[in-house]
């Protein structure tokens, strides 16, 4: 067994929460620059330039990229030969979120669904665990904003709807969302599993860096075709018209029940904020 101190995990989580909210990934910035070269809409170009400038200001002036610093979502791969010394892993993650959102001047956006009373420290974090072989701990952090999350949907199609039904559902979702999820967006699609599994796969697909090809060759062409269809919708940067409605479509597919065709679409705003911790 390999033992990792509670304090180490907590400290890394804190750092990841802060850094992801101030420094936009090079993959996303590269996506903005590429889009700028392809965009015909003058107002669309202006918005893309503002987003590039916003990322510079955030990094240099230490102002969060977006005021919605998100719910803190974590995908955790725990090696079966790992133990946490001095506390529980979930508590180390939540404590890291508490400290990161406090000391990093990040917004606390978690509240009770009915009373809307704020929990005050952005916890509870949303944590998904996966047990893997080995003695490593890999944690991926995602600051997920409410605007794009609100525009996400899951559905249970009929097997007869097939791939065409899936594509229609994805494109319609983006069309109905219009400017609300802060385009240019990243479209995460989960296909298969059960209802909740499809939603989880859709969220997980958003973690893949922009520009990295889907490891499943069956999905590469579907992603390309969907991206083309979505970028013909005309929604454009900030929804003000243009070619760049999405920067990418990411799909994860798994087997499903013989009676079902579950599909989920999880949209991510252009401020795609991620961090990875390897321990």
């Amino acid at each position, binding site marked *: 067994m390999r033992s990792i101190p509670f304090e180490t995990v907590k400290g890394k989580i804190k750092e990841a929460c802060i850094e992801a909210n101030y420094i936009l990934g090079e993959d996303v910035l590269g996506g903005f620059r590429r889009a700028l070269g392809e965009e*015909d*809409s003058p*107002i*669309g170009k202006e*918005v893309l330039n*503002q*987003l590039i*400038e*916003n*990322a510079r*200001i*955030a990094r240099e*002036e*230490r*102002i*969060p*990229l*977006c*005021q*919605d*610093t998100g719910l803190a979502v974590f995908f955790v791969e725990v090696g079966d030969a790992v133990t946490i010394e001095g506390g529980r892993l979930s508590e180390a993650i939540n404590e890291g979120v508490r400290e990161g959102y406090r000391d990093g*001047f*990040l*917004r*606390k*956006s978690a509240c009770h669904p009915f009373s*809307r009373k*704020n929990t*005050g420290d952005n916890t509870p974090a949303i944590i998904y665990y996966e047990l893997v072989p080995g003695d490593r701990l890999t944690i991926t952090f995602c600051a997920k904003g*409410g*605007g794009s999350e*609100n525009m996400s949907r899951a559905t249970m199609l009929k097997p007869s709807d097939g791939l065409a039904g899936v594509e229609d559902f994805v494109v319609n979702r983006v069309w109905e969302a*219009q*400017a*609300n999820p*802060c385009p240019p967006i990243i479209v995460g699609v989960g296909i298969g599993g059960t209802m909740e599994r499809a939603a989880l796969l859709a969220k997980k697909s958003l973690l893949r860096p922009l520009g990295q090809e889907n490891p499943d060759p069956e999905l590469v062409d579907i992603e390309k075709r969907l991206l083309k269809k979505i970028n*013909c*919708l*005309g*929604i*454009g940067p*900030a*929804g*003000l*018209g*243009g*070619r760049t409605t999405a920067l990418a479509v990411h799909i994860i597919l798994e087997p499903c029940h013989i009676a079902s065709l579950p599909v989920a679409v999880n949209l991510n*705003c*252009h*401020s795609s904020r991620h961090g990875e911790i390897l321990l």
Partner: protein
Amino acid sequence: MINKIHLTPPLEREKLETLTIGDNILISGVIYTARDTAHKRLVEFLDKGKPLPFDISGQIIYYVGPTPARPGRPIGSAGPTTSCRMDAYAPRLMEAGMRGMIGKGPRSPEVIDSMKKWGCVYFGATGGAGALLSLPIKKAEIIAFEDLGPEAVRRLEVKDFPVVILNDVRGNDLYKDNVEKYKRK
């Protein structure tokens, strides 16, 4: 170079009638913030006949819940939130005197009708550009509902805050027109 129009609240109907969708506007002076729960409370005040925590006549409400300010700064990141969540409340606030809203995303037909009726405009600020949009905010002060934290009502002093007109007082819609223009088969 894009021509920019300068505006300072309180907004007068005569001036608002000269504005049209797509106009680039720089707002200076005082604006107020309110989002979901603050809107619910403001409308509860109106329902009970109680005076609002600030004089809303001719004023602009910015849909924003900023991040906490670092020491020495007036405010943190401060970009717009999705406006459609305020659609249920906006017509009541227009009736009470509000003449401008800043947010992102399309509004309901009811809100657009109310804007025509009362002479109110809807301004768009770039969603997700909260760092950039915080720079023109020179001063911020909580004036109501402090218990709501990021959702509290703030009085902001801004200098050349950049927005574009999304819906004017004639019911035109920049989103609809522009998306149609770039739509392809």
